[in-house]
């Protein structure tokens, strides 16, 4: 199995073979002979050369496609992709060509819409306020430009990933 892992902005090539608890893996040019056990749901115990790595593997949040791995105090955010397949295209249209989408990061309720369609905004300007878990969060414009789309109305419920505003 060959994979590419992206982590903190750097890509790592991964090759991996396994036979029972024995795993042979090469990350970039580093070769590891490992004993790997799935000991609890989401918990992989890896041992290599006497060292123990108890890897607690979980999802990152719903809006993200990375895997989160915790080893002791260290947390790694890893995005895996198969180099044989086409690379993921960037999320459709987002951030492309001077357009910036403001997405709901979690389910919540729009309590106030500050801008109107067609308004000129500066980067950092408050666009709208979304309440979730009893906290009101100001959503700010990621860039300066014009509000070309506005899909939020006060009182509306939004889901994670909904496009709320597009600034161009």
């Amino acid at each position: 199995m060959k994979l590419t892992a992206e982590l903190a902005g750097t890509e790592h090539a991964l090759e991996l073979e396994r036979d029972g608890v024995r795993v042979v893996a090469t990350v970039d040019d580093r070769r590891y002979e490992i004993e790997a056990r799935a000991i609890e749901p989401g918990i992989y115990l890896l041992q290599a050369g006497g060292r123990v790595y108890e890897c607690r593997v979980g999802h990152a949040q719903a809006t993200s496609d990375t895997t989160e791995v915790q080893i002791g105090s260290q947390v790694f955010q890893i995005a895996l992709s198969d180099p044989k397949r086409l690379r993921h295209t960037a999320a459709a249209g987002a951030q492309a060509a001077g357009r910036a989408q403001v997405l709901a990061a979690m389910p919540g309720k729009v309590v106030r819409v500050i801008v109107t369609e067609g308004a000129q905004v500066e980067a950092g300007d408050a666009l709208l306020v979304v309440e979730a878990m009893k906290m009101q969060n100001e959503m700010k414009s990621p860039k300066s430009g014009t509000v070309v789309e506005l899909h939020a109305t006060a009182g509306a419920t939004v889901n994670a990933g909904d496009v709320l505003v597009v600034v161009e």
Partner: protein
Amino acid sequence: MFRKILIANRGEIAVRIIRACRELHVAPVAVYSAADAAALHVRLADEAYLLGPAPSVESYLRIDRIIAAAKQSGAEAVHPGYGFLAENAKFARAVAAAGLTFIGPPPDAMELMGSKTNARRAALAAGAPVVPGTTEPLPSLDEARASAAALGYPVMLKAAAGGGGKGMRLVASETEIAAAFATAQSEAAAAFSDSSVYLEKAVERPRHIEIQIFADTHGNYVHLGERECSIQRRHQKVIEECPSPIGDADLCAQMGTAAIRVARAADYVGAGTVEFLVSDVTREFYFLEMNTRLQVEHPVTELVTGIDLVREQITVAAGAPLSFTQADIAWRGHAIECRVYAEDPDDNFMPSPGRITTLRLPQGPAVRDDGGVYAGAEVSIYYDPLISKLAVWGRTRAEAIDRLRRALDEYTVGGIKTTLSFFRAIVRDEEFIAARLDTGFIARFNERRAARPTSEAIDPTARDMAIIAAALAQQTQAQTTDGARAQQQPVSHWRTAGRIAQQRGRDLF
């Protein structure tokens, strides 16, 4: 003593109160919203009554339904926890009118302290210094603008009716006041059903230090020492300590005396907290507010004094005298609490609702976790994202930090983001270890983190192992289309229950 108590709350504090009830041979009665039908506080109670749909205005804030449930269950008393109706004098009166005991202070004391402007006046009258500012709700933006100009920026906007950082905004200059005023009013309205806000002068390098007080129905007043609560984000505490590392016994004794004076002035009964702002520069202290309820951070006082504050709340409400005098109280060692929130510390503490897929709690010496969730539980969008309080104790602050670091590394919450990773960085931070604390701590901490090269702390072999573990997990998934889960464990008939439920959809179970 009561034989049965209804707990008008949810989450970790409801669980905490259930534990105190169990220890007192009292039957705990839970209430819950439709979103909480399988919540931990329901599981652990003897009885549980549905209040209504998920939104708290239709469930946990429904005074009528809560009292109906109490009557139906035959409970003799109601514990409000904190948040929701805990500081609502109307609720306390309704409970009393129904012939039940409210486990909390008298409604008059709640009302006096519930309005921050009245509380400031009462504190001044009792001889406790207050931060310069208006004592009146601001009727309009224009008056807010005028008051702020008179005090001089920076100023602090605060909700008259509430605490917990909700409706609170620091305003650095006049350009910010319009937006801040609107947001503070709106948050105050949402959180406390009262949009009134007021203004105070911001204090230089402020530390937030509070005094735990306790009073009984026999006229005894004691204080249980201070808590340092300066580490805050969005004006909400995230780490609390007892005692304060400010290390100024005289100052803390003065605050203790002032706190008791304020409590006496309010004819207070039960557990309460008098919050002070202390300037780390001048060492002057100012009365901020009195919280007429148990605090989230009560475990650190419990760990250092050995006194169970919730147990004491219940026995005092039942008419017993305090089980200790001021002279009995001894402070031993140092305790630190971390509030584990379902929030993403790497994304401005944005709430992170969702299902908890794995949960491993730290165990062993001098570690205490007061949680409200379990593996498989859903953290919903409807309520406060506090899922647990992790508290540790040590003979010294250094020993407590050692223990906290160890406990945080053991702690795992999968499926949602939490503030645990933030705390893991804090306990390794030199400024935290050196106890250079004030309410600007987190802002400075974030600057320090941003300035440090990210590669510095990374163990490259651990990173490679993490990549391999992620690949093993993904590979395994790619070979199955079935989402069922299994373990090393042999087949056992009762383990399959959930699987069937899942295949049929959640309505089966």
